[in-house]
C-alpha cells in the first residue's frame, strides 16, 4: 500500500514505464489463463476469508477499487466449502494489528481489538482462515490464536492456499 501510494504521489512517470501487479491480480491472471492448475479437493474443511483493511476498504477509499471480489473468486477456485464473515468487505473489522501497532508496546490494545475479529471467526465456525496480508497473518497465527484459545484454527496466506492447491 505504501509503495503504491508513493509511486502515485512522487513517481507518476515511473508508472508509465512499468506495470504493477497486486497479488490478487496476478493470482487471478494465472488461474484464468490456465497457467496454474488447481485441485479444489485439497481444502475440504470449512474456510473463511478475512478482508484486510489495506487491500479492501482503504484501497477502495484511496485508489477507487477495493480488492473484495478477486480474493473471493480465488477462494471459489480453491475450495467448495467456505463462508464469508459478517460484516465483510468495506465494513469488515481490522485484525487489530494494522497501522504498525505490532511493533509498539500496545499489546493489550492490539489483542483487545483483535477480539472483535475473533468473535466473527468463531461465529462462522471456520476451521481455516485465509488472509492476504502479512501483518494480519502474524496477528492471527502468532497472537490471537493463542490469546483466544483458537489453537485448532489453521491460518493460511491466500497465496499459500493457491500454492498448496497447485497440480504440477
Amino acid at each position, binding site marked *: *500500500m*505504501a*509503495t*503504491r*501510494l*508513493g*509511486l502515485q504521489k*512522487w*513517481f507518476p512517470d*515511473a508508472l508509465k*514505464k*512499468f*506495470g*504493477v*501487479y*497486486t*497479488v490478487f491480480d*496476478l*493470482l487471478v491472471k*494465472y488461474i484464468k489463463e490456465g*497457467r*496454474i*492448475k488447481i485441485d479444489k479437493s485439497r481444502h475440504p474443511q470449512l474456510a473463511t476469508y478475512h478482508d484486510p*483493511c*489495506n*487491500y479492501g*476498504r*482503504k484501497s477502495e*477509499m484511496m485508489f477507487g477499487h477495493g480488492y473484495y471480489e478477486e480474493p473471493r473468486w480465488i477462494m471459489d477456485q480453491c475450495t467448495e466449502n467456505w463462508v464469508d464473515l459478517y460484516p465483510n468487505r*468495506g*465494513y469488515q*473489522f*481490522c485484525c*487489530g*494489528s*494494522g*497501522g*504498525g*501497532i505490532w*511493533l*509498539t*508496546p*500496545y499489546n493489550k*490494545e*492490539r489483542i*483487545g*481489538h483483535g477480539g*472483535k475479529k475473533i468473535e466473527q471467526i468463531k461465529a462462522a465456525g471456520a476451521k481455516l482462515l485465509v488472509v*492476504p*496480508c*502479512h501483518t494480519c497473518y*502474524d496477528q492471527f497465527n502468532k497472537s490471537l490464536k493463542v490469546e483466544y484459545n483458537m489453537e485448532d484454527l489453521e491460518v493460511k*496466506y491466500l*497465496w*499459500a492456499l*493457491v*500454492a*498448496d492447491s*497447485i497440480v*504440477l
Partner: protein
Amino acid sequence: MEPLDLTKQPERMLDLKPEWANICFSCGTCASGCPVSGMDSWDPRKVIRALVLGLEQEVVDAQWPWICTMCGRCQYACPQGVEFVSLIRYLRSHRERDKVPGTLHKGVMAALKTGNNFSIPKDDFIFVMEDVAEEFAEEEGLPDFKIPLDKKGANILCTLHGKLPYGQTDDMKFWWKIFYAAGEDWTLPTENWEGVNWALYTGDDEAMKTMVGRIVENMEKLEAKNLLFPE
C-alpha cells in the same frame, strides 16, 4: 487542566485541513463503529472535537493515535467525509522521533541505512535465499528450480516483506511454487528489496519517498517490466 476560553480562537500548532476537523458535525458515527473507541479514554469523535477546540498537543501526546490501527472504518462510515486516516498519520508525524512508540521509527532508520527494516546485510541475504531455494527444490522435487537474483529484463520484479528472510523463510516458498508452476520470468533484487514501508505509519514522508524511490531504481536498473507488491 485550565478551563477552555471558547470566546477566543485557539492558538494553532497544527495546520489542520477543513476535512480533518471543521466539516465534522459531531454525530458520533465514527466512534460507534470504531473497535478501539474508549481505549486510553479516546475515540475518533473525541479526537476531532479536541482538535477543533485547540487541544492539539494533548492529542499528539496521547497514546491513542498509535493504538488506532488506521483501519479506516470511521472514515468509511462518516457522512461528512472526514479524512480520518490521513489525519492520524499527520498527528503521528508531529510526535518527536525519539518518542515514536516501539521499534517503528528504528525500523525506518534501519531501512534508510541498510535497505531493509531488519538490517540484513547483502551477503547474508544472498546466502539465505540460495540456501532456502536449495531446500525448496529438494522438498518439492524440482531440481531445476533456481532463485533468480538480480536477473535483468524479467517480467516481474518482487519486493519482499522483511520478516520473510529475517525469520519466516518457509513462507517464501509459496510464491516460488506459484512462479515455477506458471513458468513466470521473475527476479528478486539483492539490494533494497524491502517491500514494507513503516514510514507510512510513522508519518515520515521523506523516508517513505526514499524507500519507494529505491524500488523505482531497482526496476530501472534491472529493466523489469512489472512490479509485484508483496501483499
